[in-house]
């Protein structure tokens, strides 16, 4: 069955481009130009994934409102923000509202495809897990850290760690070779995204914070100034 993806984007050209690109990838795509029409559409049937722009026509934060109402409808629906806004504040508020990923419009279609596929993969694995199917997932264990590549999930000391896709891939790139410093470009490539150095730094910070919420003593992610970051060799 074809997966259904809804694109809510006020710019007709972009909407059409993305629709066509996704259709070419074999998705069933519906485009909505604004929030009311999208809401109306989602009332009858929810798509498998929603891609939203933050600013929708006259509503500067229409995307956020839509995200909020969608999350109210479904907690598991994958939501990706695709927007021209690149400020950290917007990204943080989007992720707080329950968005699964936040991409800026400077990312390429290929990147978008990668993100979409990654999200679907995670959804599938979560669904399998929930339905009790045997787990044959690819796993990576580094000390107290366990990563499930298929489900894009992470556990620290058997406690689940709630990471976004970007954060997951950054962490994955770090832990792959403990003790090896990864520079920012490598981390960016791993996360399949174009981010500036500073955003990488803030991602790392957020990842650390998430670890530290579980374990105040956490210091496995080390900064190699001038090089990048590395996963502590003691946690291998």
């Amino acid at each position, binding site marked *: 069955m074809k997966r259904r993806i809804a694109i809510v984007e006020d710019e007709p050209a972009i909407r059409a481009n993305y629709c066509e690109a996704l259709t070419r990838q074999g998705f069933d795509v519906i485009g909505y130009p604004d929030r009311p029409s999208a809401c109306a559409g989602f009332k009858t049937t929810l798509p498998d994934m929603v891609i939203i722009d933050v600013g929708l026509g006259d509503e500067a934060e229409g995307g956020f409102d839509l995200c909020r109402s969608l999350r109210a409808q479904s907690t598991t629906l994958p939501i990706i923000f695709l927007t021209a806004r*690149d400020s*950290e504040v917007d990204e943080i508020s989007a992720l707080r509202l329950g968005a699964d990923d936040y991409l800026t419009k400077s990312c390429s279609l290929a990147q978008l495809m990668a993100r979409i596929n990654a999200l679907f993969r995670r959804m599938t694995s979560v669904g399998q897990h929930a339905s009790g199917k045997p787990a044959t997932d690819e796993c990576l264990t580094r000390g107290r850290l366990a990563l499930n590549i298929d489900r894009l999930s992470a556990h620290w000391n058997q406690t689940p760690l709630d990471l976004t896709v970007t954060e997951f891939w950054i962490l994955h790139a770090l832990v792959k070779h403990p003790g090896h410093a990864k520079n920012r470009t490598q981390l960016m490539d791993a996360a399949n995204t174009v981010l500036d150095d500073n955003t990488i730094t803030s991602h790392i910070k957020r990842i650390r914070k998430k670890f530290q919420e579980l374990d105040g003593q956490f210091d496995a992610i080390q900064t190699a100034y001038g090089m990048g970051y590395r996963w502590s060799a003691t946690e291998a």
Partner: protein
Amino acid sequence: MKLRHQLLLVSLITLLIPWAGYQFVGELEQTLRANQQQHLLHYVQLLRTLPAVQQAGLASQTSSPAGVVYGFSLPATMILDGYDDDWQSSSARFVPAQSSTQNFPALEYMAGVQGERFYLFLKIAAEAFSYRARREALSATSDGLRLYARNQQGLRTDFILSPVEPGSLSDTGLMDAPHQPKLSGIWQETAQGYQVELSLPLASVAKGIGFSLTRGKQWTGVVPPATPDPLPDLIYRQTTEENPALSLTPANTQISWLHEDGWILAQSGTTATESDSRWQEDSAYALARPLLLGIFRWVLGHQQPAFTENSPPGQRANPVIQRAWREGMASGWFAHAEEGQIILAAAVTLPDATGHPRLLLAEQTTAEIASLSDQAMVRLISVSFLLIAGSLALLLGYAGLLSWRIRRLRDQIQQSMNPQGRLQNRFIASSAGDELGELSQGFAHLLHEIHAYTDYLENFARRLSHEMKTPLAIVRSSLENLSQESQTEAGRIYIERALDGSQRMGQLLHAMTEASRLEKAIQTSTRETFDLQALVHELACAYQSLESPVQWHIDIDTGPIFLYGAPELIAQLLDKLVDNARDFTPPGKQICLRLHSDGDACELEVINEGPCLPEGMSQTIFASFISLRAPQDTGHLGLGLVIARLICEFHGGRISASNLPDQRGVRFCVRLAVQR
């Protein structure tokens, strides 16, 4: 020149107050003087109509072409001793006599009148006098002193005084005996020559007196011995007893009857002398007053009469008298040299009924006017001093207030701009309604406008980048879609190039907003304590491992330095500085990274060899969109150093750029406070 000093200079205009006052007092004085002169003139005009006044001084009148011998009034009977000591107490003075030849002994004489006696004192400067031998007969040609006296009846008596020795002259032989008056005298030798003092009854010389000293044909005296007639007239000063008119004079006025030659025929009254009694009460003030007046007069000048009379006793000569002789009446003022007074005078000629021209001269001092004007002056000085002091204090105070306000405005303006030329919105406009208040409001408005404009410019990049992203996304996604379609080889290349271009445009847009995004990010950064030395060391190792054509010189000459801040930001700061240095260092040249600490602060320096900074750019290179890179060097928007500055400011540090002293390169220095 500071405003305060300018105002002080301007306030010197108040010095015009005493000047104007002084001019006024001077005018007042002049008016008063003119008034007094007028009064005096009226007075003498009135006085000359009185017969008693017309009679005064007539007692001794002359018409002799041989001139006059003036008899000074003597205070007491002279002791006939041949010495002039007792004459000194009178105003009498020696008058030089004429001489037939130059080398003949000089003769000086003085005549005097006391009561009914006439006195004559002769002083002859001669080495020796050839006394007559006792046996020699007295002759008209003998050496000696000849004296001619004409009495009231017009009879002339000739005396030939030819002593045989110094001493009394009473027994001297006489030429003409019948009506001979009683002459007594003394012949006395002195170191300079000899002196003769003699006395006659006044009546015996009433119509004339003459004398001459003879030696052979030569003579000296008032008349030639050969032809004594006409004899000079004797004139002398009349006393009050002789003429009751002399007691008519009012107080503080001196009235003189003058002979044609200026001899005083009669005189009554005295001019008042200046009285200082008013000021004697307060001795300090009495001291200060003449000093103040003196300074004032010295600075501003003082009205002084043009003429200073310096006539000998018994005689008067001044412009008023001269004019009165010419015009019949005159008034004026002059200084009297002897008494140091300023005299106002009025003179009229007396009716010439007798054929003897005389002048009536009335004089008064200006003491009253002077005292009045002095009083006014002193008051003027004190008032104007108070006025000047008051207005100066007021002006200075006001100037101080004004300059304080201006200075405050200046400081406010200066403070509203930080060293990087960015506006800090701290300008509070004054609410004053005057020009300064308006200026302040104008500045506030201007700064507000500039601030708004700067904000607009800063936001412009962000907005532009935001607005450009959507069309760029359209282009990109369209191209990517296009590349999915079946393409010819040539088409793929074009799409490839277009994608490449749009990618670059995306990077540019990204860079444009980097600074403002970073600024926000910096504000939200969390601080921690970290070791700067370790961080720099680690970074330095990383830089050295980079493949680059430059040489590295790392100089970390310190132990651990603990800073409180964001280590990633510091790393980024150093990245930016090193990145900048690498861009400007020619291949083979050196980049030097130094870290040293001096207790309270540490300095992180990045020094590169290469081109110098242009003049005046050492601060501006830290501003947005300033880049010294070559135009073809794309992808740089001159934000690296802005980021460096922002990070530095976040840590409370200072960043500066300067050329090396030998102009070999550029030195960037970051100074940060060390945590203690």
